[in-house]
């Protein structure tokens, strides 16, 4: 890639793309209270996809920050979190739907509000999935970048506001991935105002993975998932 690619998703915006292995994807929030929901699939065989339980279990974590990786259901690494100035990204909050969006923020429509109407996470994700010949049955748990949701010991879940203005998180693709993004609110954000933070997605070539890599060395589980990923690509490469 000669020059980086960049797109800004306004509140309610959506975007999806197939992004090759070895790219750096930097997500930067313009304001506070940002929430960017993301689903990840293998670009060419999307039945392999981001698996929330496998990723959390392997890393003994209920949130993501630098050093963590997003694993597929095949024990491989789809993408790594290489840098993070936010601190906590939520794997448990899910995405909004139309009923929830209307009841929380008030009913809006394109007829009345034109492009300022409130989009829901479910509709955004379904449209972008459908573009790639996937359907609602392919919906699963997204990663909600920029959001913090904590669980008390009794299991009760609470959204914690984070400063996100100007902050960013960088992912490195370890496989050829299909990434689907929706800039829609975290369902657990109690604010009655539809969040208004744009998020910029910048894609560039990533630096090579070196032996002292933060994500590879985060834990033995991550190293084995990387080994599974490297083996899978080695099996597909030609002799030269």
């Amino acid at each position: 890639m000669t020059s980086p690619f960049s797109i800004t998703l306004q509140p309610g915006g959506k975007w999806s793309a197939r992004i090759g292995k070895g790219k750096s994807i930097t997500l930067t929030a313009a304001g506070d209270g940002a929430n960017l929901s993301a689903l990840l699939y293998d670009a060419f065989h999307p039945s392999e996809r981001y698996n929330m339980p496998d990723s959390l279990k392997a890393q003994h974590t209920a949130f993501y920050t630098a050093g963590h990786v997003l694993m597929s259901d095949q024990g491989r690494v789809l993408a790594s979190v290489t840098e993070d100035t936010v601190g906590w990204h939520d794997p448990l909050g899910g995405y909004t739907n139309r009923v929830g969006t209307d009841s929380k923020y008030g009913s809006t429509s394109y007829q009345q509000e034109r492009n300022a109407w409130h989009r829901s996470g479910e509709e955004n994700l379904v449209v972008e999935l459908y573009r790639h010949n996937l359907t609602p049955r392919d919906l699963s748990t997204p990663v909600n970048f920029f959001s913090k949701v904590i669980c008390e010991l009794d299991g009760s879940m609470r959204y914690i506001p984070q400063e996100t203005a100007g902050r960013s998180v960088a992912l490195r693709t370890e496989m050829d991935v299909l990434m689907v993004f929706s800039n829609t609110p975290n369902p657990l954000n109690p604010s009655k105002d539809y969040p208004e933070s744009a998020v910029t997605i910048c894609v560039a070539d990533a630096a090579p993975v070196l032996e002292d890599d933060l994500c590879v060395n985060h834990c033995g589980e991550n190293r084995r998932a990387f080994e599974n990923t490297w083996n899978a690509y080695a099996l597909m490469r030609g002799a030269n």
Partner: protein
Amino acid sequence: MSTFQPVVSEKTAAEAVYDRIIPAGEGWIHDLLPGQVLRIIDVEGNQAVDTLFYSTEDPSDHYSAVRTITRQHNLYLTTGSVLVAESGRELLKITADTCGRHDTIGGACSAQSNTVRYSHDTLPMHNCRDTFMLMLSGRSEFTKRDLAPNVNFFMNVPVTPEGELVFADGVSGPGRYVELTALAPVTVLISNCPQLNNPCNAYNPTPAQVLIWDVEGGGSHV
């Protein structure tokens, strides 16, 4: 802890219309009618019963772990929890529970995730996702895409406020059960976990039992 509130069922095993033992490592798939009640029993204790649910009317609509937990603002399932599908469709309600807590985010073990969690040489070992796939492959309406994060009945996977995920000793015991009432036509898929790498069942997978009662006060048809 305040969430541990066992609720005993008034139903008796003698009145059940269906009674089946699921040996450790085996799968079970079954359709429930609305109003039918399914009891899953942890026969010997500390077994994890990995379970998925689908709308029988629209099998592409799978149980959603996060839609279920965000709706109730709580990570764990117990009496009163309504299990919902990805579309938001209400599938079942937990109407009795003598265990008190069930895991929603631990998912199912797989050959591939075992290589990550334990070691590469665990790849050939029996695992839940293989069982799920074998059961789904027997019904033409399902494909691998229909595998979603599942419930682990009787399993305890606490999350700390600091965001750590830990595997704690079970809160279950011999004979404890969870009872679910179907709110819609629901297909239930169980893999009775055969996991031999995880100390949660003392490396001793044991049987589960399922009982079904018909719709109260009526026949088997709705």
